[in-house]
């Protein structure tokens, strides 16, 4: 069995992994995990209370979690073009610097909208308006920092070439866009950056990767989303309770 990637394209980090693997022609078996249906990766891979279910990489006996670790692993193993994860000491440090900041300020924050608009309502929970407002403010602050401190006048977030950092960022921003907040509309610098990233990736690949999340609100409106199974409720409620 070759490389397997366990992914749910509704998840931002999963999309970053998918898009990277596809763009670089990395041969893999896609194992789709539908978190909305309460599916999870086979129990053998995860200890019982592991909260993060995807993405997961399985390469023979080697199992790896965490999108950043997976992206770095793939870029090294398949020797992707240097610019993705630059070998230069300082250039590579910039990628890690971005990813560190991203973990604190983007990850989590940008994922809240899926919970407030889709997942919580599916199990009959309404996230308080105060929390929704606080999240929007946090998203706005993060976007300002992203533009001012990272992008600046550069073509991409950490240099003049696209890197893993740009993929991770793009997918988080697409999450917010898909859930109804067009973050690019009032931010021409970020919009231009997005255009450049998507030009590197290719329109078809972007379309393919983004269409599940871009269709989510329509599915909600048409009541096409099945309610998650009861056994998924506890972990969902826990996640909802953690929304600041």
């Amino acid at each position: 069995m070759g490389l397997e990637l366990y992914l749910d394209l509704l998840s931002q980090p999963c999309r970053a992994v998918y898009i990277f693997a596809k763009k670089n022609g990395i041969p893999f078996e896609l194992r789709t995990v539908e978190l909305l249906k309460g599916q999870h990766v086979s129990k053998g891979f995860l200890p019982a209370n592991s909260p993060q279910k995807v993405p997961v990489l399985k390469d023979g006996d080697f199992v790896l979690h965490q999108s950043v670790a997976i992206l770095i692993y793939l870029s090294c193993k398949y020797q992707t073009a240097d610019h993705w994860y630059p070998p230069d000491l300082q250039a590579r440090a910039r990628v890690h610097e971005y990813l560190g900041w991203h973990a604190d300020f983007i990850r989590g924050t940008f994922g809240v909208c899926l919970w407030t608009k889709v997942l919580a309502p599916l199990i009959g929970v309404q996230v308080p308006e105060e929390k929704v407002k606080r999240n929007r403010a946090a998203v706005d602050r993060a976007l300002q920092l992203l533009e001012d401190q990272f992008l600046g006048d550069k073509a991409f977030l950490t240099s003049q070439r696209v890197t893993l950092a740009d993929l991770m960022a793009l997918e988080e921003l697409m999450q917010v866009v898909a859930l109804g907040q067009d973050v690019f509309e009032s931010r021409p610098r970020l919009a231009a950056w997005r255009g450049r990233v998507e030009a590197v990736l290719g329109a078809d690949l972007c379309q393919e990767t983004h269409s599940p999340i871009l269709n989510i609100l329509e599915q909600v409106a048409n009541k096409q989303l099945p309610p998650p199974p009861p056994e998924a409720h506890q972990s969902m409620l826990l996640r909802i309770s953690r929304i600041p």
Partner: protein
Amino acid sequence: MGLELYLDLLCQPCRAVYIFAKKIGVPFELRTVEVLKGQHNSDDFAQVNPLRKVPALKDGDFTLAESVAILLYLSRKYEAPDHWYPQDLEACARVDEYLAWQHTALRSSCSLVMWQKMMLPVFLGERVPPETLASTLAELDRCLQLLEDKFLKDDNFLTGPCISVADLVAITELMHPVSAGCHVFKTRPKLAAWRQRVEAAVGEDLFQEAHEVVMKAKDLPPVDTAMKDKLKPLVQVLL
């Protein structure tokens, strides 16, 4: 001017950077930035890190923030022994996996416990509802279980038989709740044994030195009203 490290040893990630830099013999100037005194907000420090956070590194004209980025930079530039951040594809991936996981899991739990159990009541005179603290402690417990089950398992260190930067990041995180009187190691013999191994590998003296500030945090005098106002937004986040 040689390498400068801007650190506040009250902060977990700063301790990990300090211990690592000392351990692998990086020649550096320590620039102490006291966050509780608001020193990270100075214009001078903003020149080093516009995001005004510690740790930060200045190497000639090159400035760098974020502890993981700094650890990996130092490891490579100063040619640390391989086990700290291995060249081997899978061994390296294990370290990357830990470093990514801890950022969104253990880190916030450890910070919250320290602040809610000690810093807020003692330093800022803020009452923390018992339910809030209980919920935070439960979350820490969940993270510690994962740490033991998924990372440590039956190995000597978090990512295998040898110590790596992952262990430094983890141990400095866990000392945070310890400094607040939350004895995470007492009820977890497996983690306690791992801690001994990490301390032995790092060196007792260096370990004590790095933790001197945080272990004395409970003796900090209550802050004055002006500083209290400045720290108010932080308090909101921490409750």
